[in-house]
């Protein structure tokens, strides 16, 4: 049976996040040919509609309101619920991002529906879509189906491929006026950490450092390697706690969950809480001077050695490849 799916789009620093496009693709897998309606909330959302259409949304509904400038659960819930009331969808897809994690359970609770969180794959072809998600800190997986009510899922970024962008696609972009009433939580201040360059959760290559990097300067070669490969720098909790780098780089259960094509782990031991955030990476390289380090258990390739010897050599070799 075809299903109409609402997909929540998310922007960051003025640009749509990739997960918004991945969510459209996920919506398609669930909809069985039904309509995909992308929803965009914010204080100035007029510009992104066409891009969502190009990535496969059939229609876009925007809710523009001064009070939606910053995310708040109360504001977004009011905006979104108004859209849901007028659209009456059969399913919903959000990104499993900070925003999605905060908002989705509330919406599900309000609608009295189930919610399958942190989905990494969707199996089509059967009577109903089957959702795959990691459990037990990534040590196991479960397959879930919806047994009653709306099909509501959040998807882990970088796991479900977006559809190819086609500028020629067309679709309607409409706006809905929603009055946003009292917000019970008020954001007084936001300290944004300078994340110059690639968004960690969307990066195709990540070079991550741990306590073994030993200092802030120690991260320099990692940064150089990441830049060379068009990737981003990440870190373990150990490196963040030691103040070698900012917590915004932290990967793991407490930090960001990432699924790059290539994860190069330098001087980090591979604690379960760290692995929960990266074990789904397509290819993992470990560089560690301790041959017994846990990280070698998940690594596809490993070099037992001092990262301060290995990383500069890697930079040299990659430069050669790039040049050829």
């Amino acid at each position, binding site marked *: 049976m075809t299903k109409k799916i609402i997909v929540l789009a998310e922007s960051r620093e003025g640009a749509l996040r990739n997960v918004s496009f991945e969510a459209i693709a996920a919506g398609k897998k669930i909809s069985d040919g039904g309509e995909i309606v992308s929803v965009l909330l914010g204080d100035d959302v007029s510009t992104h509609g066409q891009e969502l259409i190009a990535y496969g949304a059939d229609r876009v509904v925007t809710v523009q309101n001064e009070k939606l400038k910053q995310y708040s659960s109360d504001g977004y819930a009011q905006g979104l619920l108004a859209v849901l009331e007028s659209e009456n969808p059969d399913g919903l897809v959000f990104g499993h991002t900070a925003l999605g994690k905060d908002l989705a*359970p509330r919406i599900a609770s309000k609608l009295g529906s189930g919610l399958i969180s942190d989905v990494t794959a969707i199996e089509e072809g059967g009577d109903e879509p089957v959702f795959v998600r990691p459990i037990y800190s990534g*040590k196991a997986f479960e397959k879930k189906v919806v047994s009653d009510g709306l099909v509501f899922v959040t998807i882990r970024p970088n796991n479900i491929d977006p559809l190819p962008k086609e500028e020629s696609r067309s679709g309607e972009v409409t706006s809905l006026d929603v009055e946003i009433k009292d917000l019970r939580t008020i954001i007084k201040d936001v300290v944004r950490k300078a994340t110059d360059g690639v968004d960690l959760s969307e990066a195709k290559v990540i070079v991550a450092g741990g306590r073994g990097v030993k200092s802030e300067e120690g991260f320099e070669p990692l940064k150089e390697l990441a830049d060379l490969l068009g990737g981003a720098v990440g870190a373990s909790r150990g490196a963040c706690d030691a103040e070698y780098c900012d917590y915004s780089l932290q990967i793991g259960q407490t930090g960001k969950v990432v699924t790059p094509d290539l994860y190069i782990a330098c001087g980090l031991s591979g604690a*379960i809480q760290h692995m929960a955030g990266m074990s789904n990476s397509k290819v993992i390289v470990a560089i560690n001077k301790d041959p017994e380090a846990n990280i070698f258990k998940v690594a596809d390739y490993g070099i037992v050695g001092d990262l301060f010897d290995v990383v500069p050599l890697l930079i040299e070799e990659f430069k050669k490849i790039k040049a050829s």
Partner: protein
Amino acid sequence: MNIYVLMKRTFDTEERISISGGKIADDGAEFIINPYDEYAIEEAIQLKDAHGGEVTVVSVGSEEAEKQLRTALAMGADKAVLINIEDDVEESDQFTTARILAEYLKDKEADLIIAGNVAIDGGSGQVGPRVAEQLNIPYVTTITSIEIDGQTVTIVRDVEGDSETIETSLPLLVTAQQGLNDPRYPSLPGIMKAKKKPLDEIELDDLDLDEDDVEPKTKTIDIYLPPKKEAGRILEGEIDDQVKELVQLLHKEAKVV
């Protein structure tokens, strides 16, 4: 202040995991208080110490959760409540758990409810916000600090590494992120005292709920371990050669660069 903590007994995921009969095998496994709930319990105790009041720790589960509830009492919580669903509920999901917790909490006049931001086994992070929505109170997730002054609450929350300062008011639900505090270990006197503290056990009946009210909306159809990865290749030889080989492998075999 009347503080409630939502606590889940979880599998210690640092342990080896195996599957038997389509389930994660739990014989011989270690069970712990979900680590994020330890932060929640610690924060509740510190807030009680600062503002007075009472800390009640609530868990939905089976009799086995008594052990973790006792530990919470030994840390310094005043009361524990086990909502034992073992006999009534065969299958459950986050809808089920949240519905039960909200039903229990609705007439408790809690000023503050503290949950963990995520359970390390189930991993959905749904239960906190779901409960808040059902109680119609505001919530703030992944908090790293909380200060209460009368009814006014100032919170710092972690948003993928950025920090947001939020002002809100009681009653409120928050979920604990790592960095909120350093949970204490139960002291020996704490453990002795805990034995005499109340640990009540209730069932769905006591909440005027029956099985149908809490029937899950989603169903697990399979649980499996990730396909065994071929053992990784630890390169050998001189470091220079290892690096050359690695770059070739990434380029030609794995094709990721």
